[in-house]
């Protein structure tokens, strides 16, 4: 058995519901030797798309009668019977019954026009949360009705919906999985109220915005909103009645957990009357793109040879002018940013989720791979005096190893175009270079002894390769052996892998030597 816990917000007696907890039947003694029963409450009315609504066992009603708020609870079994032990009509007295669903203890009485003195909130409580894609169990609107009956005569009440449902059918055309976090409905019609606090007008059978917390946006939060590429999902938003004149727009906004906010204007060709009790359907195609500071990034998910080395322009990413050290970077359309952000140029705050640019102030070429899961940032054309290269196998700058990388290793003779497997080592100060490298334990090259081997390479003045002899410096021996021949360090198996490592090389260009230090980083 479950019991609904209602929460009151301050003096306004705003209404929150749908928060559920397990609790058995309880018995509360009342005065005059009577009693009341608080039954365990199950979920509220059951909505079966597209139009069906049924009572759930032990649903409860608010009944304003004889100047009181009386709770009626649905009796178990067949039939639409609601009972109370808190009210007994007197013979020969005519009563006005104002009935509201669900039960709200905050209602006290009505004004002279039949309007409640207190307000309810829309959406209310957890009812503003859809639990998963295409799940409709959160659809629980307000119902109201009124009637008159005399004495013990059972009132004949017809309830009507005070809200309606907008169904938003989202098709994922992004070519990759997306994760919906919320849906919002608004209009460009001034004065439209789609959320906030409302009084109940029993005389007119409608909601009346009370001027507090009222918003022109209906908000649905979504849990478990994953939609695979090419698939669709349906989302249900509860709204009060509203109208949209011809030529105006209904704005459907889709939010994702990758911080994308995608809005779609639906223009009314004629006046659209979203009357209470209706179900209104719309569809949107969501093509979520990776964005940085509002600019779409190039996604190299199929072309791992995309490169910013050749200056041809065709393989460049997106150029960002004058990135300033310390500035905040806004990413959207990129999932798991905490795993894939570029450790050499960016800093990620785990608590705030804020990404900060930590490189020197400069212009950079930026691109992204949804397949490999990484954000590359580089100078145009890469000045040989500013960068060295790692060459080998089993190492990447991206945390994902894909089968597209399996055949690629020791590829310097092919022009350094494999940006994934040929990491750049950036110059920090004269004679010192460092970069964050991801060593993966799932790469195709690994064997029982080691998971990666690599060289450190630069250029001489004639643009010929320089191969540096690497010796182990601080911390590196814990992770990397330099005992191999041919200046090829070996990344050994140990408990530290896989993960990001910051490798720092102190280089003597004339002697063609480098002392390496290694540090595991988050």
């Amino acid at each position, binding site marked *: 058995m479950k019991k609904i816990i209602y929460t009151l917000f301050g003096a306004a007696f705003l209404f929150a519901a749908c928060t559920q907890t397990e609790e058995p039947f309880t018995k509360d003694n009342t005065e005059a030797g009577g009693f009341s029963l608080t039954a365990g409450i199950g979920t509220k009315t059951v909505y079966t798309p597209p139009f069906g609504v049924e009572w759930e066992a032990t649903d409860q009603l608010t009944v304003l009668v004889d100047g009181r708020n009386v709770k009626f609870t649905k*009796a178990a079994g067949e039939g639409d*019977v609601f009972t109370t032990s808190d009210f007994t009509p007197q013979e020969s007295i005519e009563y006005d019954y104002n009935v509201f669903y669900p039960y709200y203890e905050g209602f006290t009485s009505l004004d002279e026009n039949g309007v409640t003195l207190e307000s309810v909130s829309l959406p209310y409580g957890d009812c503003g949360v859809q639990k998963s894609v295409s799940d409709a169990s959160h659809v629980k609107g307000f119902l109201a009705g009124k009637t008159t009956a005399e004495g013990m005569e059972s009132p004949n009440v017809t309830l009507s919906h005070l809200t309606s449902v907008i169904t938003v059918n989202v098709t994922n055309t992004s070519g990759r999985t997306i994760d919906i976090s919320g849906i919002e409905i608004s209009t460009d019609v001034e004065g439209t109220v789609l959320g906030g606090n409302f009084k109940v007008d029993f005389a007119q059978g409608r909601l009346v915005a009370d001027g507090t917390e009222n918003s022109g946006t209906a908000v649905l939060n979504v849990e478990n909103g994953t939609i695979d590429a090419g698939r669709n999902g349906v989302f249900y938003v509860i709204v009060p009645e509203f109208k949209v004149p011809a030529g105006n727009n209904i704005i459907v906004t889709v939010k994702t957990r990758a911080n994308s906010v995608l809005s779609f204007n639906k223009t009314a060709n004629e006046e659209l009357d979203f009357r209470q009790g209706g179900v209104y359907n719309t569809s949107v195609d969501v093509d979520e793109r990776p964005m940085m500071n509002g600019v779409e990034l190039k996604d190299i998910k199929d072309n791992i040879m995309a490169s910013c080395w050749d200056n041809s322009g065709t393989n460049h990413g997106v150029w960002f002018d004058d990135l300033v050290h310390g500035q905040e970077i806004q990413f959207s359309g990129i999932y798991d940013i905490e795993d894939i952000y570029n450790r050499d140029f960016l800093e990620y705050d785990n608590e705030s989720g804020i990404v900060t640019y930590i490189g020197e102030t400069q212009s950079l070429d930026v691109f992204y791979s949804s397949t490999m899961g990484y954000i590359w940032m580089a100078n145009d054309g890469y000045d040989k005096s500013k960068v060295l290269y790692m060459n080998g196998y089993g190492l990447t700058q991206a945390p994902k190893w894909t089968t597209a990388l399996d055949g690629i290793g020791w590829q310097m003779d092919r022009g350094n175009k494999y940006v994934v497997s040929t990491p750049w080592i950036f110059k920090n100060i004269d004679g010192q270079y460092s970069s964050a490298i991801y060593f993966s334990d799932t790469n195709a090259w690994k064997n029982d002894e080691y998971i990666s081997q690599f060289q450190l390479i630069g250029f001489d003045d004639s643009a010929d390769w320089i191969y540096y002899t690497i010796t182990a410096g601080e911390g590196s021996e814990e992770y990397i052996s330099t005992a191999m021949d041919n200046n090829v360090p070996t990344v050994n198996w140990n408990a530290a892998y896989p993960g990001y490592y910051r490798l720092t090389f102190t280089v003597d260009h004339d002697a063609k030597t480098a002392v390496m230090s290694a540090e595991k980083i988050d």
Partner: protein
Amino acid sequence: MKQNEKLVYESPEIVGFETIMENGFAISGIEAPDYDPDRSFEF
């Protein structure tokens, strides 16, 4: 109306639906209204 077994307490306090009716009241025939297809449209 039939006795509501869900509202019956076990001993020592046996409370049946008839007892409730002696002290309270019931409303019957309140239907949960479906949404109205005639009020619905695509946009």
